[in-house]
């Protein structure tokens, strides 16, 4: 894995992005704005599942009407995130919060697929009602917590001096 990161780090296009004055601020700003589009809409979908808001809106309306926008935000987020990683791979390789964010995104994705292919199949039975099945509520809570944690670890990536001691002892970035 390290050699892959080192190989990318040495690519001329990676160096060019890294050395560009405007590339990093532009990519990071678009990353934050697209995060607002994606995570902002997903948060209210999750809160609908939990029963905290939009209780008069049929549950099935939200994926149909809001997910295309949320996924657009996610797509832009992935592209800009990928470019940020591509421009400074060795900065992120040894960063605990980068790997924590990746792991949390993976778990959030698994939760999303599990919900979609298991719980959501029976949505017609609880679409209009105020009583959401416990499985769906649980998926909503888990998703809220996981995406909030993704946002937090993403911000913490800037604090390379605040990584856990056990992680520092591994000397991964050295």
């Amino acid at each position, binding site marked *: 894995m390290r050699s892959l990161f080192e190989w990318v780090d040495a690519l001329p296009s990676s160096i060019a992005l890294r050395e560009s004055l405007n590339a*990093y*601020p532009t990519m*990071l*700003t678009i990353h*934050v*704005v697209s*995060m*607002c*589009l994606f*995570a*902002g*809409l*997903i*948060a*209210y979908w999750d809160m609908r599942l939990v029963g905290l*808001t*939009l209780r*008069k*809106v*049929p549950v099935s*309306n*939200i994926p149909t*009407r*809001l997910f295309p*926008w949320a996924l657009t935000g996610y797509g832009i987020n992935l592209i800009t995130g990928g470019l940020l990683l591509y421009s400074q791979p060795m900065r992120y390789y040894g960063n605990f919060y980068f790997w924590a964010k990746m792991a949390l995104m993976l778990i959030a994705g698994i939760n999303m697929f599990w919900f979609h292919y298991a719980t959501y199949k029976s949505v017609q039975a609880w679409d209009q009602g105020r009583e959401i099945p416990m499985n769906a509520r649980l998926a909503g809570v888990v998703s809220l917590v996981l995406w*909030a944690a993704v*946002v*937090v670890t*993403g*911000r*913490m990536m800037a*604090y390379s001096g*605040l990584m856990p001691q056990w992680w520092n002892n591994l000397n991964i970035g050295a």
Partner: protein
Amino acid sequence: MLQSFFQWMQGLPFSAWMLEETWASPIIQCAHLVALVAFAGAVLVVDMRLLGRGLIKTPLNQLAREMDRWMIWSFVALFVTGAPQVLSTALKQYYSPFFWWKMQIVIIGLLFNFTIRRRVAFAEEGSLGHWPKVVGFLSIGMWTGVSVYARLIGLLS
């Protein structure tokens, strides 16, 4: 006068504590970002509806009323977590053009929200022609501008 006010903020014991305490700034910045996501979602759900997108099967005024409290409380959270950051880096903010542009749009955005946007969103649907679309577009534009300038304070100041 404004400069001396910012110098006073920078000199407060709280500002010094914020800078000295290792975890204070990161925790507050993370909370600020989570509040931003909550705020952006509440704004977007209504603005997209104003644009004729999103939850079009739900009456606009019902959606606007429901999202109003989320928007207000997440903005309160943004203010509560934003103020300590301004206090602890007051002079950096003072000399950053992005900070002033951000604050100008925040004030215009708030005034716009509590006057025009709210009136349009709470009005009877279909009675205002193309105005809901204009309002939705302006609202998204203003709050996107705030996010962009906020990010640039940290990156380019």
